[in-house]
């Protein structure tokens, strides 16, 4: 456990360090003269990196307020969206992964899953919005003020469903991969020969392996959901951090874009770290 703690913490810190360098390289574009390249640019990057260590992330060239304030205002919306979507992703992705892990289940729904997986997130979000308006008569609305202000059906349902479905795809993939790997393992038939009921084998041996596989891929799930969140925030006008990143790039507001990039990378590395510990807690090793 101690070695795992050290190794995963090292990966987290080194990854975060690399992301900080990337963010500093982006933020340096806002410094006059740095875009000339060469030594001035390198000095600008180092200067930005040094400022970051003192939590100085620059200021927005659009609004004038500090980049930290701009991102702090948008982050709760993205965090809320990701949190609620994680519930949807788990509720849909876990059963789907368990079904697809069995060969008999796969044959029935593989073509359907392939079509859904081929649908870009923006097409799926537009389709959901169309169904909501034309079939149910519910028009999506922007969240007014706080996350849960206004009608849940009008503000939360569609963005959460869009990002949740993207997350469900990643969850079911992680689960069904592990399930397919352990399907024909000799220890399963060995346990059956010893007289253990199938349910007990699944409960005590198979389920921990599968969920360990899910936790080992938690970073990938987080990445898929953050990417979907950027599109969902754009389509539904959600004032979150992901769309703040897109708008900052459009207006060349490099300081704000750099901070959001750092936050998004930190989410992925944090998910990897948490997933590694959860995986180790379940089965004592990192699942393949």
């Amino acid at each position, binding site marked *: 456990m101690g070695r795992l703690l050290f190794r995963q913490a090292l990966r987290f810190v*080194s990854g975060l360090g690399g992301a900080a360098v990337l963010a500093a390289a982006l933020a340096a574009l806002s410094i006059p003269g740095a875009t000339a390249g060469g030594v001035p640019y390198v000095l600008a990057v180092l200067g930005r990196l040094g400022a970051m260590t003192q939590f100085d992330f620059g200021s927005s060239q659009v609004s004038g307020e500090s980049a930290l304030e701009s991102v702090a205002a948008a982050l709760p919306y993205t965090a809320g969206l990701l949190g609620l979507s994680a519930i949807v992703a788990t509720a849909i992705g876990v059963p789907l992964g368990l079904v697809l892990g069995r060969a008999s289940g796969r044959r029935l729904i593989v073509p359907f899953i392939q*079509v859904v997986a081929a649908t*870009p997130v923006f097409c799926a979000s537009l389709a959901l919005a169309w169904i909501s308006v034309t079939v149910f008569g519910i028009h999506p609305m922007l969240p007014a003020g706080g996350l849960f202000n206004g009608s849940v059906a009008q503000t939360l349902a569609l963005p959460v469903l869009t990002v949740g479905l993207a997350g469900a795809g990643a969850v079911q993939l992680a689960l069904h991969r592990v399930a397919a790997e352990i399907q024909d393992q000799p220890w399963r038939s060995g346990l059956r020969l010893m007289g253990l009921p199938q349910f007990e084998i699944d409960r005590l041996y198979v389920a921990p392996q599968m969920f360990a596989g899910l936790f080992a891929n938690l970073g990938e799930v987080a990445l898929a959901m953050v990417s979907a969140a950027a599109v969902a925030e754009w389509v539904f006008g959600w004032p979150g951090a992901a769309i703040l990143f897109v708008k900052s790039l459009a207006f060349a507001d490099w300081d704000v874009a750099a901070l959001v*990039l750092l936050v998004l990378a930190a989410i*992925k590395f944090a998910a990897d770290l948490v997933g590694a510990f959860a995986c180790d807690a379940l089965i004592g090793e990192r699942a393949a």
Partner: protein
Amino acid sequence: MSLVTISETRHAPPVLKTVLRAVGLVGLSVMAILAVGADVFARAPLGEINLGPPLAFPSAAFPFGTDEIGRDVLSETLHALAYTASRAFMGMLPAVLLGELAGFAAARFPKVIGGFIRWVADVLGAVPTLLLAILAIATQHAAFAPLAAGLAATPLAFARAFDRAAGEERSALADYAQMTGIPAATLFRRDFIYEFRERIFSIAARAFAAVMITLSTASFLGFGITPPARGLGLMIAAARQDYFTAWWTAAFPALALILLVLFARLAAGLEEGERP
């Protein structure tokens, strides 16, 4: 039953996967013919307005309907398909060369160098591909979009190829071969040829699917393809104001995009839910 027969039976690909792969190849071929021959199959040149009444429902005269300025949606979809597919093909090349091939080769580098490059790919891969592509487009210009989409897909492709090749290098077969005196360079050349001779189409189709999704999403968000050029993403974005009542203005371009990505995924042999 000989050992060869046993091993062939044990490693025979599942029937379902083979069928889906064949469907993907055929579908991709059909889409390629439509894209290359768009100027022939389309009933009107790109951007021709007032061909019919605005927002006309699909009919015999206009099978995919018309849009808000009377353009034939079928013709516009074919032209957009050709444009998007050709740009995605351009973007696929860096993902294959700098991603898959370079990742495979980097696994053979000295551990410190290979490990550092792998770490860089990890850091870049921590940013969602779409946002990385938009970042590259924003710091350059719109015409850079296809290459940006390809470069954004490179870190994940690199990491995948690196991990696969690193696993192969540590296999017992590689150890035995080196013990018999076969140089590492010869082993690398052999593995490289076998790897890409069998898998190059699958790798290219996977990269094509990834770049298609990234490029069309970026142009939907307003980055990349700009008017008068019209890709599928931009066409769908333009239809947003009318599609609640005139669903065909967005549905048919979206269907063309989904089919193209679907056939590329099937041809690449991707698992259900697996991201390209």
